[in-house]
């Protein structure tokens, strides 16, 4: 099922960002299986593979849901469906490492705010997939923005928000039907203002020192739990400690919501105290202040191109953050955290690139495309299967009307495992989401 051929090559690159593969007998397994699709070739497009240099006038050929060949002068079988890509661009499918689609759904009515179990400072026991509503029309809109894979995270109101789930962005009745097969789990953690504001409703933590105490106490419990587990001693399964023990053992990667540089430094010390590798700092408005440390620690950063000032801890955000991280050698990513921004992660990447150009240092398209494709795939532990265009990888890709770093770029066709999920040349006359189907006025199809 998994193409092992490219696993080795990729793992050399991804180093410490690769969380351990998920257990195969884990509960709530994926039932996702792509539909069949004809052998397809996009011919004559400019191709950004997210692995090597841009290839002009190239052919991307995929069959049986996998990339078969990329390059110039590729011989195509007679039965291949040929799509003219002249003047257009092809990129890997976009991956959003920070989404709440399906857990904070549209419509955003109270009964659909299922993304944060705000009942205590530590709710590591909850799993985002158990909240996820596959009919959220936001998935469909994200597909139209070229997004083929998403990490759905719990919210940031508490120190430990629960487990994330990685999904393929396909129409599905159940979450199991879109769950990325054998993707490792992640766990959401949050620093700073949000857990404190949660406390304003009468619970601890009340301060940032309270936040740290909460993290430390939880990991002390998890250490004891993990030790017993590793010794094979019998104990009742504790869902909360299972997640925390998974962080300590490295089976579960961490997605840490953290804005300020000083707080990221505290979290790094926390990771040293308890011996785990931080996966990704999210938002990280001040990451540029400690770019060298983050690079040295091998910690990824997922942020926006240019969002700041919505709260005090985001006041020092700068548009050059992404570029500064890239220049320092940090594993850099753009995320959305938004049902709106997720539709334009290519524009986010364009904005971040242009900030670099404004100080006279160009960042190439080849590098920038990784911020929204290969780099998040690596942090999510799925880069052996998606995130770049390479033979044997999942045929998750986008045909853009023009340079994807243009404000005018539109995702004309989107493929997930070779299956067409968006086609502007033959627009669907019905929405994928049951919620929108049959509405007297239905706009969100487009």
């Amino acid at each position, binding site marked *: 099922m998994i193409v092992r051929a490219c696993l080795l090559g990729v793992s050399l690159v991804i180093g410490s960002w690769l969380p351990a593969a998920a257990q195969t007998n884990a509960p709530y397994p994926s039932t996702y299986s792509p539909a069949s699709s004809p052998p397809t070739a996009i011919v004559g497009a400019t191709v950004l593979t997210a692995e090597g240099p841009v290839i002009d006038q190239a052919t991307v050929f995929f069959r049986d849901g996998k990339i078969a060949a990329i390059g110039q002068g590729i011989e195509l079988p007679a039965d291949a469906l040929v799509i003219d890509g002249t003047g257009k661009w092809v990129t890997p499918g976009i991956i959003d490492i920070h989404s709440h689609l399906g857990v904070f759904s549209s419509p955003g009515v109270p009964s659909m705010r299922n993304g944060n179990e705000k009942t205590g400072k530590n709710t590591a026991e909850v799993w985002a997939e158990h909240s996820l509503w596959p009919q959220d029309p936001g998935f469909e809109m994200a597909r139209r923005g070229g997004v083929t894979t998403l990490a759905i995270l719990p919210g940031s109101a508490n120190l430990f928000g629960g487990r994330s789930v990685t999904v393929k962005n396909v129409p599905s009745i159940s979450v199991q039907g879109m769950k990325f097969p054998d993707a490792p789990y992640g766990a959401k953690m949050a620093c700073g203002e949000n857990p404190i504001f949660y406390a304003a409703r009468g619970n601890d933590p009340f301060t940032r020192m309270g936040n740290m105490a909460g993290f430390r106490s939880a990991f002390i419990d998890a250490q004891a739990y993990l030790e017993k587990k590793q010794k094979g001693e019998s104990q009742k399964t504790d869902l909360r400690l299972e997640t925390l023990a998974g962080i300590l053992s490295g089976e579960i990667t961490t997605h840490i919501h953290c804005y300020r540089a000083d707080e990221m430094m505290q979290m790094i010390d926390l990771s040293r105290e308890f011996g785990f590798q931080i996966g990704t700092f999210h938002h990280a408005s001040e990451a540029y202040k400690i770019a060298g440390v983050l690079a040295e620690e091998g910690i990824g950063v997922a942020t926006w191109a240019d969002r700041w000032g919505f709260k005090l801890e985001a006041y020092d955000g700068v548009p050059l953050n992404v570029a500064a991280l890239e220049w320092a050698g940090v594993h850099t990513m753009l995320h959305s955290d938004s049902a709106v921004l997720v539709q334009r992660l290519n524009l986010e990447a364009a904005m971040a*690139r242009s900030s670099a150009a404004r100080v006279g240092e160009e960042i190439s398209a080849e590098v920038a495309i990784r911020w929204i494709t290969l780099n998040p795939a690596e942090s999510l532990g799925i880069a052996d299967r998606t995130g770049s265009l390479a033979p044997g990888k999942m045929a998750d890709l986008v045909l853009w009307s023009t340079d994807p770093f243009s404000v*005018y770029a539109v995702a004309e066709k989107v493929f997930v495992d070779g299956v067409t999920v968006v086609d502007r040349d033959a627009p669907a006359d019905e929405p994928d989401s049951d919620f929108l189907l049959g509405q007297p006025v239905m706009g*969100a199809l487009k």
Partner: protein
Amino acid sequence: MIDRAIIVAICLAGAAAPALGEAVALRGARIMTADKAGTIENGTVLIDRGRIVSVGANVRVPSGASIVDVTGKTITPGFIATDSVIGMVEISGGADAAESSSRTPGITAGYDVQYAINPLSTTIPVARKGGVTRAIVMPNPGADGATFAGQAAILSLRDGVTADILPQVGAVWDMRAGAYGRGATFVQFRADIADVRRFAREPAAFTEGELVSREWSRADLEALVPIIKGEKPIAVRVDKASDILTLINVFAAEKLDLVLVGAAEGWIVAAEIARAGVPVAIDPSDNLPGDFDEIGATSDNAAKLHAAGVRLIIRGGSSAHDAGKVRYFAGMAIARGVPAEVALASVTATPAEIWGAADLGSIAAGKQADLAIWSGDPFEPATELSALYIGGAAQPLTSRQDALAARYIPAAAGKKQQE
């Protein structure tokens, strides 16, 4: 390197002639006028005493005017951020550094944003870097379910310690359907308007306690007098198609000047909006059914409204911090089928006209010299802003964000040294 030399030349020229009577000719650019002249290739804009004297392919430049070579650049009017809280908000949440609405039920329609604007807000230089020269600053609805949010103003984003504000350019009203219920909110609105008409005729009715649709303050009544006379518009934030139709009917019956803001389902009733001659301010990224008032939200809203003949205003990034991104929102509308010249007008000339500032928003003789000079297509992220003039004065294009970047990011520090 060549680019940088030109930029420096522009800055110097601007600094030498900040509306002090020395004419400046910007020569050789592609000029997108947002006016009848359309786009002029290889044109010249002559500015003097803060105003545009002439624009065209063959402009006579008087002797003594400084000439700035902007060959290869593109000049647009400075952009206008509509429905913004810029100047009122330094930090949006949790920092007691934001005001966007009245906090007392005693002042609603009279709430005047001009007093809430801080010209030293760090958000203003950031917006300038996006080519924004003015903002239609609008309050949000205030305390106790108030429907009248207050008075909008046009803020100049020019550098300086004193704010340059055109106050009270229109009112802002919010249905507050959730608080009042639709069956009540329009009834209340018409009763309020009847009281204001009475007050306009007989001011003594106020002191005699005969205005009873609500507990009025004199400030609120006075603020609404120009509105009931149709001299100034009321902007209404609304999404639902059926509500839009109700508003059109009620405002027509009351002979009030309506501007729709939001209008996610506007496309459904585009023909009715066009027939009523009502302008619409929309966010082209608003395409999700966020609630049951906007089940019909779509990315095609802007294009469909335009196709129906509706006057379009593009708004985007209504937060103070995102005001400088309005050019990308115009670009998104273009990507979805709005003609480029319409998109340009939607962030320049159209909002200026609707809020009664006819000397803003376009490049034409007699207009204020609000000019943005770009390295290329003004809607593309890769395009750089080379210079910005507000009222003929060249503006600084550095922000607190640049200072932070220069402190921590070597490339930004290097850039600062070169300057």
